[in-house]
């Protein structure tokens, strides 16, 4: 991609998840020049790592496929992966953006034939399985990866594996000499669709995520349920690979908690309700899911889904914030707490505990331009000069539907910015 194609008529979208892809596509399909940058080697973001969506129980990759097709067919949209925004200067309608491009060590020649991965032996925890599996150091992130090109992890450089990968490639696609580079772009408007990250579960000490193997997060549970995931879609306990048939879902793991995240992450209740249906899907009537909650926030039509789950005999609800978790000798977990509806004390054993982990803005980890306004949790409201916008889960904790809605709206606002500049220029 040549930086030169960017002008102050160009819209920059930061983040290639569902929100960013949507903002970029909608703007490009309105005839705008768009550059979409993603810091990972593939588009798709976190939704690509989900098994199903609530409330339809349909598959995220289904929408991703359509979006990728839209993207492949659109000549106005340029994608830069492994690219991070390091600086934004200038003003509304006329920004200069610095991008750091990290080396992929694989060029456009790659046909995704997979020979390099076969050749190398080095492995690393698979970030696309939240570390629940291992992946080769030469890898294709996942089956829906776009661009459909392999990646060499920096760790491989200088090792024998690097050479193995290089010689295994028949198409001159591997370029070990690739270096990090910085490029500058002129853009008229910026959409921050940097999305979210799961809150660090280890910080929620009473739940022992860092001490007990069978306490996992909701995003990890998605990987377990996914047929493309580490267990091929089987719900097995990390500690001993035994089937997890009696599962506890703990709501507000980090959310609504001034010791952690002040805000409610909105999606966790629905995510857990959805996940109880994974358990049923896997084991039929021979399973038990228990949701420990403060308030079930199944807003608007989602109430229908909540009711459906309530009617499922394998699913139970306890109105309680679990006080603490203890582990017994077989690796099972005892949840201690009190059901506040009528004050009933419990100490209940479960095979597996899934923490409905809160959404933290991914942007909390990156340096935003000074002009950007964020709320008390770090979600992006936009820039004071009105030329930059937050979209999707970067702007507030949202589900996919709202994220797409917000991204579509942000796209229009960005278009207005570049229109105004254009207008000024002709005048």
């Amino acid at each position, binding site marked *: 991609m040549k930086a030169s194609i960017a002008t102050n008529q160009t819209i920059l979208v930061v983040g290639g998840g569902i929100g960013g892809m949507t903002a970029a596509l909608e703007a490009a399909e309105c005839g705008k020049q768009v550059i979409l940058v993603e810091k990972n080697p593939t588009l798709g973001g976190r939704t690509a790592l989900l098994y199903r969506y609530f409330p339809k129980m349909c598959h995220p990759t289904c929408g991703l496929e359509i979006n990728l097709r839209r993207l492949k067919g659109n000549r106005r949209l340029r994608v830069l992966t492994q690219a991070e925004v390091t600086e934004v200067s200038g003003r509304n309608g006329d920004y200069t953006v610095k991008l750091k491009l990290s080396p992929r060590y694989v060029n456009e020649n790659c046909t995704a034939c997979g020979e390099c991965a076969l050749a190398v032996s080095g492995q690393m925890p698979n970030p696309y399985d939240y570390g629940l599996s291992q992946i080769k150091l030469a890898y294709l992130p996942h089956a829906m990866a776009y661009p459909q090109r392999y990646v060499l992890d920096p760790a491989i450089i200088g090792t024998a594996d690097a050479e193995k990968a290089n010689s295994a490639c028949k198409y001159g696609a591997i370029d070990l000499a690739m270096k990090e580079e910085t490029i500058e772009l002129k853009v008229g408007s910026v959409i921050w669709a940097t999305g979210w990250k799961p809150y660090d579960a280890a910080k929620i*000490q009473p739940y022992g995520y860092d001490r007990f193997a069978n306490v996992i997060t909701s995003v990890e549970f998605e990987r377990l349920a996914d047929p493309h995931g580490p267990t091929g879609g089987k719900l097995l306990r990390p500690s001993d690979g035994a089937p997890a048939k009696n599962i506890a879902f703990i709501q507000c793991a980090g959310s609504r908690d001034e010791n952690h995240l002040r805000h409610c992450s909105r999606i966790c209740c629905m995510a857990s309700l959805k996940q109880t249906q994974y358990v049923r899907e896997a084991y039929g009537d021979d399973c038990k899911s228990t949701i420990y909650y403060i308030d079930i926030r199944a807003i608007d039509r989602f109430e229908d889904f909540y009711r459906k789950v309530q009617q499922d005999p394998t699913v139970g609800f306890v109105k309680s914030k679990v006080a603490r978790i203890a582990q017994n000798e077989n690796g099972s977990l005892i949840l201690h707490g009190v059901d506040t509806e009528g004050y009933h004390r419990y100490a209940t054993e479960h095979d597996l505990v899934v923490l409905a982990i809160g959404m933290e803005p991914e942007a909390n980890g990156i340096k935003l331009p000074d002009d950007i306004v964020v709320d008390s949790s770090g979600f992006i409201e936009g820039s004071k000069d009105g030329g930059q916008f937050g979209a999707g889960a970067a702007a507030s904790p949202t589900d996919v539907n709202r994220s797409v809605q917000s991204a579509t709206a942000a796209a229009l606002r960005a278009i207005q910015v570049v229109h105004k500049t254009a207008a000024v220029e002709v005048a």
Partner: protein
Amino acid sequence: MAKKEYAFYPGCSSQLKASASNYLTSVNSMCKTLDVKLTEIPDWNCCGASIGYAEGGELPRIAINARNFALAETHLPGQDIVATCAACWLGARESKDRLDENSVLMKETNEALAAAGLHYKAEVKVRHMVEVLIEDFGYDELKKPVKKPLEGVKFAGYVGCQTNRPFGIAGESFENPKYLDKMVETLGGEPVESYDQKVTCCGGALAFSEPDKSQKQIRDIVESAYDHGAEMIVTPCPLCQANVEVYQSEINKKQGTKFNMPVLYYSQLMSVAYGGSMKDAGLDGQLIRATRLEEIAKK
């Protein structure tokens, strides 16, 4: 001129011939080795302890703590107050925090102090001895003077409540603090890291009024130490020490258990590891003798 000087707040239980006098003994020996000078806050008073709430009320409790601060500020200017007792540290630290963030309370308190011609300037810091060891020295420094590593002795690090919550030691978690384990390691002993009653409440505050309830707590604490193969329990808190040690015989009597688990202070371990005698380390003050430590001390 000693390496470090502090305004010392021993607290009631650490006085001569009081329930934690052996704590005091071992702290003195430990400080000697570390070249720490502890100067008692002249005429210090009781912190009121958490149990003092019922009769004491809010302001009187804060005021008597402020009295100690004022005395320290006047007589030992520039020195941090260091408490060895968990309750004293908590009572003082809590009072100080509330005073520092509430100007009204501050005004009222000084009004009360004025009755004894005292004034609190909010300059002094209140710390626990463990904080001093970890923050002002650090594990490496603490390791240096070790003469007699506590080789082969398995310790369950029992942190309890009040040195751990709500303030705790910086960087440690409330549910799984690791500093006692690290100290034991530093001294060449074997920490029982999987010990799962680390932060269980011993019921100390209610030991007298609700003996059965608190003795159940103690039973869990000791039992789990045995289950995890510990030979001794080590703790930073005199109330924990007293309760967990003293009531074992009671529990044995009532419930037919055969508990005989020594319960020591980190300072006793340090004193021994630093080459202190059984007496220096206050081992003679144990109701349940720590035989293996005594052996090491005698070496």
